[in-house]
Structure formats: C-alpha cells, structure tokens
C-alpha cells in the first residue's frame, strides 16, 4: 500500500516535472512534443531538456533514498546518510579531480569514473572507522571531517584550474543542480545507478539480521564482509554516478527513511523500496520547487534539499541526544 502510494507520487511528480519550465508550453503541445513530435521547438524542449531532467531527478532521488536506508541499516545509525557521512562530497571531489585537471580530456566519462572512485574510497574509510568504534557520534564526526576535507579539496582544484569558469562550478559540486542536463547524462548515470540499486537491494536480508547485532547476524549465517562489500560497491555506484551528473545533493537519504519508517514494520529490509520511491518523489518535488520558487533565476536543487534537510537533521540530533545520553 505504502509502495503503491509512493510509486504513484513518483509518477505524478514526474509528469509535473515535465510540465514545468521557463518555456510556455501548454499541456497539449507538451504531450505531443514528448511522444509524437509535431512542433520542432516543443519536441526538442520535451525530449532533450525536460525528459532527461525528470528522469535524473527520479533516479538520483531513488539512489539517494535507497543508499540512505541501507547505510542506516548497516551502520545501525539513524544519522547515516551519503551526504552527511561524506560519500557525496567525496564523489564530487573524485569527479572534479579527474575532470578539471584535464587528465581525461573534456570527456564526460571522466566524471563518473572519478565520482565512483571517490565515493568507494570514502565508504571504505568510513566502514573502517565504524568497525573500530561503533558509536553513532564517531561516524558522524568522521563524516563531517571527510565532508569538509573533500569540499575544501574540491574548491582547491576548481580554484587552481586556469579555466575562469571552473571556480563558478564550486557551487555545483557542493550543492548540486539538474539544470540543462541532457539524455547523454542519463545514459551515463542510469546504468551505473541501476547496478548500484541491485547491489544495495541484495543486502536486504543481511540488514535485517544485522538489526539484531553483528554477532547474532553472524550466527544466522550472514557474512559481514560480503555484506559490507555489497554496500560499498552499491553506494559507490548509486551515489557516485548520481553525483557525477548532478553534483552533491544532500539530505534526501537522511530525511526519506525517517519519514517512511513509521509506516513500515521497521525492519531494515522493508524500508528499502519505500525509501527509494520516497527519495525519487522528494527529489522530483525539490527540483520542481527549485524552478518555481524564484521564477527568473533557478535555484540549485541542492540548496533546497539542504534547506529541508538540515533543520530535520538538527531535530534528529536533538532527539538522538535525549536517547543516547
């Protein structure tokens, strides 16, 4: 039931996203532009500008929501989230480090390659830290440090680039945007993200067992190292590929699992699909709002998700403090 509602929300929001834009297209020309062709301008706008944007918002939202739910389950930490623990910003840094130094020419393929490497490295690092010290706070603090460090390195690389436009792109890599993406970005990111979803979903049973504790999970026949590997690769693929084409979009993976958890049986595995769909719906909504809030100047969608997410995070911290101390 929950999944059906969230799935419907995704569909409706995708449709709304396709209808929102600076070009004044009425419903009929939008629909005919999307499916049939007809007017050249309407067709180009629908198929080459709005469709990739809506698809990316949906699929990146799914990636972030799913990765958030899996990380919260694996680390048994309500604050775990790719953006907060530094995975997204590491992915940004990886993409920036490879693309702007011109190592791979101006090829778009440099972006996901770098982002995946950055994201994977950060998840490995964080798991190593979490394995030594399981406290909620340690992981978050390590994530804050990692976010600051990679954010600073991202800014540094962009400032050092001789291209004058590179330094303006700091904001894109720190607070992502979906403006003027194209289908080539979709084809670049979607296969990698889909593979990531499969790997993350494959960890579902292990996450349920882990909610009983690591020892109990091992006694149930869960191989912890295999689960960790699945999550590392899955997160790197899902979050890394998304960040490579849309920059760092934070807080989706934090907010959504908390919002949908009360409507599930609270088992980590039953949280995965609702979190994924909820993430897609939330990012679609945020991206629609980013275009509508200030009609003349589009906002970065990362700004909006942070505006929603950061107060939510503060509230979670305050609540968690009451429980933990």
């Amino acid at each position, binding site marked *: 039931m929950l999944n059906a509602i969230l799935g419907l929300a995704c569909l409706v929001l995708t449709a709304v996203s396709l209808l929102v834009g600076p*070009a004044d297209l009425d419903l009929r020309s939008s629909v005919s532009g999307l499916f049939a062709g007809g007017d050249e*301008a309407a067709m180009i706008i629908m198929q080459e500008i709005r469709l990739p944007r809506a698809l990316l918002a949906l699929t990146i939202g799914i990636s972030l929501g799913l990765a958030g739910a899996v990380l919260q389950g694996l680390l048994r930490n309500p604050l775990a989230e790719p953006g907060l623990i530094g995975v997204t910003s590491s992915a940004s840094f990886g993409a920036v480090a490879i693309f702007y130094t011109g190592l791979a020419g101006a090829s778009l393929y440099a972006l996901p390659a770098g982002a995946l490497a950055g994201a994977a490295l950060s998840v490995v690092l964080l798991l190593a830290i979490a394995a030594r010290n399981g406290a909620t706070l340690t992981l978050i603090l390590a994530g804050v440090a990692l976010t600051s460090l990679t954010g600073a390195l991202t800014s540094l690389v962009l400032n050092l680039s001789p291209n004058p436009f590179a330094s303006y*792109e700091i904001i894109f890599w720190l607070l992502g945007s979906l403006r003027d993406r194209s289908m080539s970005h979709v084809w670049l990111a979607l296969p990698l993200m889909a593979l990531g979803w499969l790997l993350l979903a494959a960890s579902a049973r292990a996450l349920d067992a882990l909610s009983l504790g690591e020892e109990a999970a091992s006694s149930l026949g869960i191989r912890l190292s295999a689960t960790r590997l699945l999550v590392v690769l899955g997160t790197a693929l899902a979050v890394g590929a998304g960040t490579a084409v849309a920059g760092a979009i934070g807080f989706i993976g934090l907010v959504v699992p908390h919002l949908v958890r009360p409507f599930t049986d609270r088992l980590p595995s039953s949280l995965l699909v609702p979190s994924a769909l909820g993430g897609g719906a939330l990012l679609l909504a945020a991206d629609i709002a980013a275009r509508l809030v200030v009609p003349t100047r589009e906002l970065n969608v990362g700004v909006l998700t942070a505006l929603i997410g950061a107060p939510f995070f503060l509230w979670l911290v305050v609540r968690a403090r009451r429980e933990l101390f």
Partner: protein
Amino acid sequence: MRGCPADMDGRRPTAPPSVLPDISPARGEITHADDEINLPPCGGSEGRAETRGSGQGGWQGRGGRRRALLSAVFVSTLSTTAHAADLPRIMSMNVCTDQLVLLLAEPDQIASLSDLSLDPSLSFLHTDAAPYPKNSGRAEEVFLAKPDLVVTGTFSLHNTTSLLETLDFAVEEFAYNQSVDTIPGEIRRMGALVGQDAKAEDIASTYERDLADLRARQCPAKPTAIAYEQNGVVLGQGTLADSVIDAAGLTNLATELGYSAMTPLPLEELVSHQPDIVIVSEPMADAPALADQIAHHPALRALQTARIGAFVPRGAWACGGPFVIEAVRALTELREEIASCDPAR
C-alpha cells in the same frame, strides 16, 4: 612574436621596409581552424593594426592600397621612434587596456602587461603580448616597475587602483562597458596617454571607415542571432557583443527578450524562440569546465534551422579595440550567407 627578437631590443624600427612585401594575402587571412591570426612576421605595430583593420576581404580586394598605406605608416614610425626615450612608460593591468597599449605604444614604452593578455579567449593580440613582462595586477609590482602611467579597467582591481592613486601614481581607468561606437574614442584616448596621437588617429579612422562600410551592408532582412556563452549566459543589451550583432545587421534575440548585460538564459527559452544563429564560445582545450558543455547540449544540436558555431574570431569581441571590426565582419558575412538582401530572391 616569436622570431622577432628585434621587437624587444628596440632595433625593429631600423629594419628595412623591405620586410613588407612578405605580407601575402594568405598570411593576412584569419584561419578559423585554429583561430590564430597569422600575422606578417616582424611588421610594425601599425602594420598589425592594419592587418586587422582590413581582415579577410581587405587583403584580397584592396591589397595594393593597403600595402601603400602600410609603407606610409611604417615611415612615420621611423620618425616617431627617435623620441621614444621621452615617451611615457606604461604599465597595463587589464586585458583590454593591454591590447590598446600593444597597438599604440612603442615596444620600449611597455613596462608590463596583465597576465591575462596571453589568454587567447580574451586577448585577440595574445601572440603579440608574449614577449613583454607580465603583471598580476598587484600594487607592489607597480612599485617595482615605477611606470610613468598605469592603465587599467574600471571593472576590477578597485583596491589596487585607489591605493596607487593615494600613492601618487598616475592611473587611468578605461570603462568596461563599450560598444562598437565608443571604440574609436578609447583608441584616441589611449593614443594621447601614450603619446602616440597620430598612430591612434590612423587606427581609429581606419576602424571608423571599416565600420561604416560594414554598416552600409545592412538591409531590412535581419535574422536573429544569440551569443550563448558558457553556462548558457547570453550577452544582452549594453554589451559590446550586442552592438557588434546590431552593427552586423542582425537582431540580438537576447536583447529582444529583454535581457541586458550578461544573464543566464534557460536553454528552453532559446529553443522555443529558434534563433537563426547561435554563437557559442570555444572551450579552453587544456582546462575543461562543465560550463563549456552547454554548447554540446543535444537540444541545441537538434535545432535544425539554426546555424551554431563560434563564428566570431576568438577573442575579437572580448574587449573594445580595432579588432572588434573582425567580429562585425565575420557576422556580416554570415548574415549575408543565410539571408540575402536581394528582395528578388
């Protein structure tokens, strides 16, 4: 300029005028392939200005007259350089003043140019700028160089400018906002500042004549053009590019839509207005940025009726200078290619 050591040690003006016949039409032409201007080797600075002033068409049709003019200007250089020691030493801290100084001042008058003068996307005269010392616009560098005059733009470096003025350095600022019609005035002003009035008058009047000739080619058929820069920023009303587009007999779509200065234009709006010409800027080859990718967006490429390309010679409309005429000329030729003025057709 490589291969012109005489430029630097001040012996250049004594070189025999016999170098001038080396200027062949082929060398004077703009090659769009690499967007470098192949200049006549070791020509006088007026020679360079003339090369730009005449450009592609000029060398083919009016080569003889040009050459005669060049020789005349060259001789006048010989007479002025006798007093080069009395002329002010100039330090330029802005890429636009750099180019005016390069055109007008004698080589030994130039204390230093800004380091942006080497950037081919901003500086049309970047190859000419190569031999001179560079500054990065800091007050300390002015102290070390002790120039007679500092020229800079009003666009930036306000702190440096006011500091230098407090310390009694002569500082002249040139406005950033320009149009094709303000350029001759700026050339003459810089000429007066560097003590090269006659040279400035010559370059400015050639420019004015060329501009008038190109404007005379305008006709009622005004296709729409839009300068779509990195990140989808358009050059609207009040920009140099806007006046170039207008002078070339085109309608600037950005201005029509009410955009002024440099403003981002959503790609959707560009597509829905279907301009005839989309002028994109060329990316830096060695330092990629996402900003450049807008030019490769499939939505632009899908506009079947639009002509999309760089069209304007690289750096030709980044700054006000006589070379802006090359931008006007390139766009005029493009307009004549796509929309005939002949009502019979």
